[in-house]
């Protein structure tokens, strides 16, 4: 028999930290159980498409099991749109298979290169959170390999504690093998959308308040401008179009070719994204749209996944990698405070996104809660960036907000516990299903969610 374990370099999307560790790659669900049984007593964590940014899907001194090849679609009901798939099926796979039938995933993040398992583990949200909630809200049942080696069926009625703790549980309750969820019915690939320029943060909130009629909202926000123009940006709002679109409603080949056009890896350099280029990009982006309001029809790819057309865009930040900071706060003043802190720190964020969440909140370790979320990318400046993030943590925690675990690579355990008051109840469930902590990640250890660190 060939060895199932081999050394591989593993990192999150931000490429900090990255390290070499023993990995297995599952072709079939039984391979995950085999890996768990043969992990040599070391802790293990699943790794899908690697789009969480930090250290959530890696484990130095432990084992990693890659789930990307668990990519079979197992069942689909055309009448209800309910689909059952293996956990390594990606949002891309779902769209390519089901958009021609008139169905779209109920929630999609900013990239289609995420697995269903990862979408559940991070309880991802999308531009429609204010009307549709997060991905976990649409999941009806999962099959999950737990520490005992059993595959457990879990839903809101059956093993409900495990089900709830797994949604947003960052892979620490076991390895999700398959999931059942309902797709949304759509007419075609087009999005009816409007882009509205806003001159500052107050205007963002004003536009947001009159956007209830749109199922999808998100805004790009310039985080390099201070003073009166602080928080200027472009508000994008839209909905799945009822128009089928001219000609072929969906040509996967064209999309696929377009995706191959740009590859960021040859441009990898630490100096490329600096304060000057970031400021120039943000100003150009803001000024690109001349009119106050532009209505247009967009292809879903450019509306939902604009960065996917640049393969490996995370390499643009160079070898040093980058960090993302995403938080949600319940009140506007905290958003202003965060923006003031960032623009004052002189560490420009290349791409910043702002959105208001809806009312749903899944508890446990799930991120979304009512309020405004802001996501920022920073080149890895090292210590000054970590210090800035600590200052932001204070503002966010004081306001009763929290930082998104799927983006996190550095939060302290105390801060985490302040932001996620459900953590103890969550860990009780984790320990019920995994008393000996077979499932651990570097993030879980850092945050005191696994590894028996009860202090």
């Amino acid at each position, binding site marked *: 028999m*060939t060895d*199932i374990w081999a050394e591989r370099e593993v990192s999150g999307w931000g490429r900090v930290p990255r390290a070499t560790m023993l990995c297995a790659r599952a*072709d*079939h669900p039984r391979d995950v159980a085999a890996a768990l049984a043969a992990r040599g007593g070391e802790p293990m964590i699943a790794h899908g498409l690697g789009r969480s940014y930090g250290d959530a899907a890696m484990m130095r001194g432990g084992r990693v099991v890659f789930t990307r090849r668990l990519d*079979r679609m197992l069942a689909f009901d055309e009448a209800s749109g309910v689909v059952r798939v293996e956990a390594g099926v990606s949002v891309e796979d779902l769209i390519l298979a089901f958009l021609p039938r008139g169905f779209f995933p109920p929630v999609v993040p900013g990239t289609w290169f995420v697995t269903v398992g990862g979408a559940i583990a991070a309880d991802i949200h999308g531009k429609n959170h204010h009307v549709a909630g997060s991905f976990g809200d649409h999941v009806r049942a999962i099959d999950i390999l737990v520490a005992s080696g059993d595959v457990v069926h879990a839903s809101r009625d059956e093993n409900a504690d495990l089900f709830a703790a797994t949604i947003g549980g960052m892979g620490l309750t076991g390895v999700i093998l398959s999931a059942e969820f309902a797709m949304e019915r759509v007419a075609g690939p087009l999005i009816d959308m409007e882009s509205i320029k806003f001159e500052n943060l107050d205007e963002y909130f004003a536009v947001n308040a009159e956007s209830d009629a749109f199922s999808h909202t998100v805004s790009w926000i310039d985080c390099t401008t201070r003073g009166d123009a602080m928080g200027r940006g472009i508000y994008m709002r839209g909905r799945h179009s009822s128009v089928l679109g001219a000609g072929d409603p969906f040509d996967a080949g064209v999309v696929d070719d377009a995706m191959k056009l740009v590859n960021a890896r040859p441009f990898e350099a630490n100096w490329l994204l600096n304060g000057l280029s970031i400021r120039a990009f943000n100003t150009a982006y803001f000024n690109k749209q001349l009119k106050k309001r532009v209505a247009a029809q967009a292809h879903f790819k450019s509306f939902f996944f604009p960065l996917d057309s640049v393969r490996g865009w995370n390499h643009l930040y160079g070898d040093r990698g980058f960090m993302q900071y995403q938080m949600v706060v319940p009140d506007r003043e905290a958003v202003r405070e965060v923006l003031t802190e960032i623009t004052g720190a002189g560490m420009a964020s290349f791409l910043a996104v702002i959105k208001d969440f809806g009312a749903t909140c899944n508890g446990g370790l799930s991120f979304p809660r009512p309020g405004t979320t802001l996501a920022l990318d920073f080149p890895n400046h090292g210590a000054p960036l970590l210090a800035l993030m600590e200052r932001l943590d204070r503002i966010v925690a004081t306001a009763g907000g929290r930082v998104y675990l799927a983006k996190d690579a550095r939060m302290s355990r105390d801060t985490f516990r302040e932001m996620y008051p459900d953590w103890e109840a969550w860990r009780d469930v984790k320990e019920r299903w995994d008393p000996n902590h077979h499932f651990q990640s570097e993030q879980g250890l850092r945050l005191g969610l696994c590894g028996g660190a009860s202090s």
Partner: protein
Amino acid sequence: MSAWIFGATSRVGEALARHWAQRGYDIVLSARRREEAEAIASDIALRFRVRAHVLVLDATDIDGHEAAILAMAASSGAIDHAALVFGDMGDQEGSQADSAAAAHVINVNYTGAVSICETLAALMIEQGSGNIIGVSSVAGDRGRASNYIYGSAKGAFTLYLQGLRNRLHEHGVGVLTVKLGFVDTRMTWALQSGLPKATPEASAAAIAAAVERGENVMYYPRFWAGIMGIIRAIPEPIYKRLKIG
């Protein structure tokens, strides 16, 4: 139109099935493990909207091959392509020490493959068309200390396919011998090598293209033809002293 894959739960087999399903072929997925083959069948039917059938078959269960294949053929119609992708490397040291282990490796890779091919050949002669694709290995090109039990079975399979091609040519049936180098599958996961590994998807596309062109023998990745040309050219008095792999 239908394409049959023997060894469908291997990643190259699954990639071939997806490749042909995307082009409208109904698919027959043959494998030992029903549950995994059925997951792949559901997936192919959903993604590509073709029919996908499961044929549970063990390569070493020679007595059962003919009846099982004929029964499936009766319901699935003409067979355009039939690819044998399965294989079992076994464990060289285990095969040296235990003749039953060696016999198993030979039975999976050679005897079983021959049995399936003969049944397919009879069907395709009757049809007057079809392609048999035998996935052999570069390991069958020259014996090596580290894997010669497996290598000899694959070498015998290569020779068998050559004879079969010779016989079936006048019946309008093609036979393609595929010699795979390193493909990124479970077999090579832990393999440390400076040579690049091809993806299963690229391998499948290359195999399907070679079938379309009516090729007889192909190496994939292609550069393996050069590597094996050199290895085959080394005179035996020198070769026997070398430690290759």
